[in-house]
């Protein structure tokens, strides 16, 4: 209702970071998201909860996003989306279909005035006030490493592996069904709860030696009367899947080192001095300590000796890691950047697509415009 709208020039602008598992929602110039909610909607036809990432077709995704954005605006934000800008924080590796559909929903269904799309790895650094860092984002679906140098993500050096919350859940599921015979098909919510409340990342030294005393078992209540025994071994090995090398000898630690190898030799030192871990999975107890151990031991390998690195320094975010990139979006969105660089509705209606770094047509346009990404 316009009469109740204050006449102040500052408009509320929604900042949205849609992850595979959780969506971070809040407003610009605030230092924490208002809500962290699951990225899922209730399907009206089947009345089941469906994840946004479980779409079958572009139309299906469109309908899911319409429902999801509706909930965001009318359940949480409590403002009309029409003629307001919105800030979207997304990974540089976000599928084109997803971002195009999101733009379509926002511009045509909800009629936002402009969308500011920010690359998550770059903006996460805003809260640190550094412009060069190795940003490691370990989320639900995958772990993505992007070196950012002087405010520019080095695109040719990105690394991604399907190591994240989902991989841990699958590993935990097989561990639990081995330990508790007859237990099949644990729902993902239960697995997540066991992971969060019981499991931790153990020390590297404990994984090698066979005769260690495992941590105490946990009796986990399940389905009312039943109990699941989460053994000490399960508790400390659930996260091992992130650190075990796969058939290509790739794991979380090698990703970071491989990314370093692809970066210019003069930038490597400052990148190792600034490692920034973001994403919900990195909040696990012991995750960072273990990653550091792994990195240092990998350096002894032949292929990484040429890097000539002695140490890694890690940043501590002034926020919780799971919303680090959201916070960056909130800071960027609070500045004039929003008015200068956002994609307006007129532009979208004319061009019918959202500019992207992968699209050559936009890259030509960007060169004249000094680069949408990394203007700081």
């Amino acid at each position: 209702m316009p009469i109740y709208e204050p006449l102040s020039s500052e408009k509320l602008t929604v900042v949205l970071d849609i992850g595979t598992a959780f969506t971070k929602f809040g407003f610009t110039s605030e230092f924490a998201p208002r809500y962290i909610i699951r990225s899922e909607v209730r399907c009206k036809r089947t009345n089941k909860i469906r994840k946004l990432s479980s779409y079958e077709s572009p139309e299906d995704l469109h309908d899911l996003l319409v429902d999801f954005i509706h909930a965001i605006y009318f359940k949480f934000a409590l403002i009309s989306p029409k003629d307001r800008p919105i800030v979207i924080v997304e990974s540089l590796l976000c599928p084109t279909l997803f971002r195009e559909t999101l733009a379509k929903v926002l511009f045509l269904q909800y009629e936002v005035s402009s969308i500011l799309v920010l690359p998550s790895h770059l903006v996460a650094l805003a809260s640190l006030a550094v412009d060069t860092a190795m940003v490691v984002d370990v989320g639900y679906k995958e772990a993505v490493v992007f070196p950012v140098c002087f405010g520019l993500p080095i695109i040719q050096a990105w690394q991604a592996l399907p190591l994240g919350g989902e991989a841990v859940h699958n590993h935990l599921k097989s561990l639990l069904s081995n330990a508790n015979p007859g237990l099949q098909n644990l729902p993902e919510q239960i697995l997540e709860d066991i992971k969060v409340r019981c499991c931790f990342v153990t020390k590297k030294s404990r994984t090698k030696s066979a005769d260690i005393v495992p941590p105490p078992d946990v009796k986990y209540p399940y389905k009312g009367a039943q109990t699941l025994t989460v053994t000490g071994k399960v508790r400390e090995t659930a996260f091992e899947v992130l650190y075990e090398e796969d058939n290509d000898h790739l794991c979380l630690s090698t990703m970071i080192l491989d990314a370093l190898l692809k970066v210019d030799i003069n930038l490597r030192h400052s990148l190792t001095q600034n490692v920034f871990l973001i994403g919900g999975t990195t909040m696990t107890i012991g995750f960072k300590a273990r990653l550091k151990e792994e990195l240092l031991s990998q350096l002894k390998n032949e292929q990484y000796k040429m890097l000539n690195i002695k140490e890694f320094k890690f940043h501590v975010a002034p926020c919780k890691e799971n919303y680090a990139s959201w916070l960056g979006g909130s800071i960027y969105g609070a500045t004039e950047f929003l008015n200068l660089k956002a994609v307006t509705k007129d532009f979208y209606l004319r061009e019918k697509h959202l500019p992207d770094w992968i699209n050559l047509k936009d890259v030509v346009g960007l060169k004249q415009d000094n680069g949408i990404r990394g203007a700081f």
Partner: protein
Amino acid sequence: MSYITGPEVVSYACTCGLLKPIPQLYFCRHCSQLRCGFCVCHEVDSIFCGKCSENIPSAEARVKKNRCASCFNCPSCHQELSTRIATKGPVVNPEDAKQPSPHKKTYYLSCYFCRWNSRDVGIPDQGSATGAWPERENVHAHRLQEIMDTYKQVMMSQKQQKENDKKKQRGKFVSFTDRTGVTSSAIRKRIGLPDIPHAMLKKPNPPEPAVAKLEVEELPDSLFTDPVNLLEITTIEQRHLQPETQAATVDMLFPIHKQLSIKRSLRCRRCEHNVSKPEYNPNSVKFKIQLFAYYHIPEVRIVTVEPLRAGKTCELILKFTNPTQHETTIAIKYVDLEQQATYVEEQKLSDVIEVLEQLSLQQPTSLPSLSGSQPSSLLSLTPRQPSITVKPRKINEEVNCDVAIPDSSFILPPRDDAAEYDDSTDTHNIEDDPKLVKWRKSNKAFIKLQVTPMAHLEVGKEVICGFTMQHIYTNVIATTIENKLPQKYEHNVRVFLRLGNVVGQE
């Protein structure tokens, strides 16, 4: 009520192509089209707290971060917390026992569902019921504010620079102050003030960059030996309820202010008229404007269906109800799914033309109005931009049953609330086709239809039939003064029925 909450047995096709039961549809009287939640424009109408039923203006809601100042939710189970009185007994002072100090009431918050209370986490009891419950602050707020201010300045000076560049390019105009030689800095010097450039033009000094550390949080050794008490560790939902702190243990959970709720008004995207507008009062469940399809479109319900057999004709009895105050005539026609497909195509074409027109219209008008000497507060009152209509889509329903289209139509008398209580005057002067109309009472009619499930259907398959219901709609809004009589015209609605499953042979 089962037809409201239960499975969608009878569904109507909205103009946008989605199938919905009639309680979920709206009818825009101005465009005379069906609308649904998907193809109308939703707007926030008023904000209120669902617990204390208090209206909260949007400016206040914004300051309070969309949360109620006085109501709290349980951080453990997310139910509402209630304030409880903890009376401290009279403090008996041995020295002046004659004058017992008065009862002192204190309050604490408690959850009736999971028995969590504010004493568990060490929040002291408050002296007043609405209590100034302690709020927690972000420990990093100061540092982040500093960073954000710097970024704002950086962007501001960039913007300023861009504007300056533009000014230099013009070059034609000579500034008066330049000609007289009295620039602002010269004036400042003359008066004796120090020469300071504009605050926003100052080169911002960058904030201290964060320093990375060699050491990281180590795994506590106690983890390997101490047993875990699950009751003390928060779940991921509890953590996410408080994104700022995300407490890992139960003793760090603080009560959460209750999230406010809204009332929505819905607006037709084509004609910008409201189709639903609630009353302002949060206690009222009534509407100022309610153009629900339920009040305008005849309602169809299934009365009986004979057992459905593939390829065999069976009888279907439907009840039609006229909800309006005007007599209507209903004809049942063949449903043409191709028609919607062509409509979708037409809309696509017209959209392209519209967009082009819009663009050519907007360009000349947008500039002069803004660059004038209007005060900036008026800019926020710019008129509503026209809405973009939602693109219609094809109807996604597989009709696998033929409906024998009756030759004649039938009349439904207007709704009369008094007739419900009046048994005697149930006489009609309507000549009905006895083949079609089986029975009628006041504004309802029971219609017999012949349906034939397609021959190839297997046993157990759901049978869906569809028809177009053409009814006479009487538009009562006098849009033009010279045309006072209510306008009548034919309106088509596509209705789809889920009749049930195919059964085997007798």
